[in-house]
């Protein structure tokens, strides 16, 4: 199963990204890792070409909300109506309770939302 992985926006944290790639590859996924500083369109282009089942968006510098806004709608417009979207990382500036963050990102169209401490399994 093809999945797209990347760090969105003007964000170049890459260590977590490599860990995620390794973990998902070991668990049988074919990971297409777009690396860091990835734009919404780059995620979607790759998902289209690879007929990916999911896009996993990481964001660690706190501006995730602005960068992720509109992603779900863009996916739909570009033909990926049923694609799974996950978001994870340090998604907002400051300390917000995880439930609030989760609500915010689910409203943006994400299927699952992860905070900074996650059991990958």
């Amino acid at each position, binding site marked *: 199963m093809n999945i797209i992985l990347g760090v969105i926006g003007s964000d*170049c944290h890459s260590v977590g990204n490599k860990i995620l790639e390794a973990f998902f590859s070991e668990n049988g996924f*074919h990971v*297409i890792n777009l690396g*860091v*500083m990835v734009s919404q369109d780059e995620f979607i*282009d790759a998902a289209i*070409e*690879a*007929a990916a089942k999911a896009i996993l968006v990481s964001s660690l*510098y706190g501006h995730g909300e602005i960068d992720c806004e509109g992603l779900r709608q863009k996916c739909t417009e570009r033909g990926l109506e049923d694609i799974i979207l996950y978001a994870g990382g340090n998604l907002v500036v400051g300390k917000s309770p995880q439930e609030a963050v989760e609500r915010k990102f689910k409203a943006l169209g994400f299927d699952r939302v992860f905070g900074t401490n996650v059991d990958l399994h």
Partner: protein
Amino acid sequence: MPEPAVVSIDIGSTYTKGGLFSVERGGLRLLRQAGMPTTPDDLSRGFDAVRGVLAAEADYACARVYFSSSARGGLKIAALGLTPDLTLSIARMAACSAGGKIVKAYSYGLTEEEIAELEALAPDIILFTGGTDGGSEKTNLRNARLLASSGLASVILYAGNRKIQSDILALLANKEAVAADNIMPDVGVVNIEQARDVIRRIFLDKIVDGKGLSRIVREAGTAPKPTPLAVYDLVQAIPAACPGWDDFAVIDVGGATTDFYSHTESFHGGDAVLLKGVREPILKRTVEGDLGLRVSVEALWASERAFLGERLRADGLDAGAFAAYVRSVASRTESMPATPQEEAFDCLLAGACVRAAARRHAGTMARVFSPQGAFYVQKGKDLTRVGRLIGSGGYLSRQVDGRVLAQACAGPADADERLLLPENPLLYADADHLFPLLGNLVTAFPEAAPRAAIAQLLRLDSTR
């Protein structure tokens, strides 16, 4: 007893030209050149005439002949990809580097209007790509059905998702369809070699259809090389045969197109530099069908109107006379400038071709600010390390100073975004305009031909 010699002839769409080269101690030396307008009704007439002049002394009549032909003005290719920035952009790369002229490019699903457009354009080849191997299928299958039920007579080369290759070929059973490896087997991976080879083979079959060529093939005992392939092969052979020539570029400005070849590593990396989009190949060729000095001169004026207008004002030239000149030479493809004013106009036009072709070939570097500090994002190919630039084609080969060629180089840079153009390269002219002719000889003389090409270059002073 004369030394062994070979003849190289290029049958161009406007001009048939040739050279006689002696082969002495592993090197090639030009003995004689000849040329005349191409005879399109029977290509062998012009060919025989040029060959006759070259082998004027009967001793050379048996010299082996290598020749090229440009197939009625070039191979028309329509490119079809899935997303514009991924498979379509790689498909364009494959088509250009194979010497084709891209007449139209489409992405996503074809519409009825686009099929009608294709039928009217009647390209020689439709390069049909899209999807990674094991990736997207639906759009390709739908496109194949549309192509199958169309009235298209083009050769369809399928170089997309390998998983559905046999399904696609089955859908296209009523068409002339062939397949090659996926030009993008995984996201961002460029794999154009096989597609290039297939296009080259198709090109060859199409050329030999030309009038009178089959007789030439029988006599010469070899098939022609497609002309665009000749210079490409020569450029490819230069680094191995000529020490110090690893990072260089060649610009060929012609009557109909400007071709830009760069041989240099496309991305140099570094701590704070990221590459976005596909990584371009070390040897890259772009063909600009709207940048030419005669056949395409009106298209050139339309594409580069702002730049040309500015230069006309800056140089104090008569814009009205310029417009008249452009209209006049568009149909007089053989014409040479007759007055100093016309020479100035040609100089301006050539400079516009060089400048625009370089800017389209080169990538960009943008500075981006992130919480971690400044980063640089590169797209496309980095030409800043191109240390040597060669001008070829009729106009540039006659230049004795670097004025026109220097237009391909970097100007004052914007801190936040700049074009990755060559910076102060050494400038050269292909003084005897031998690149196409030596390109024909590269397969038989893989070291002597590139060496001869470099040896006859005229070093130019750059005056900016």
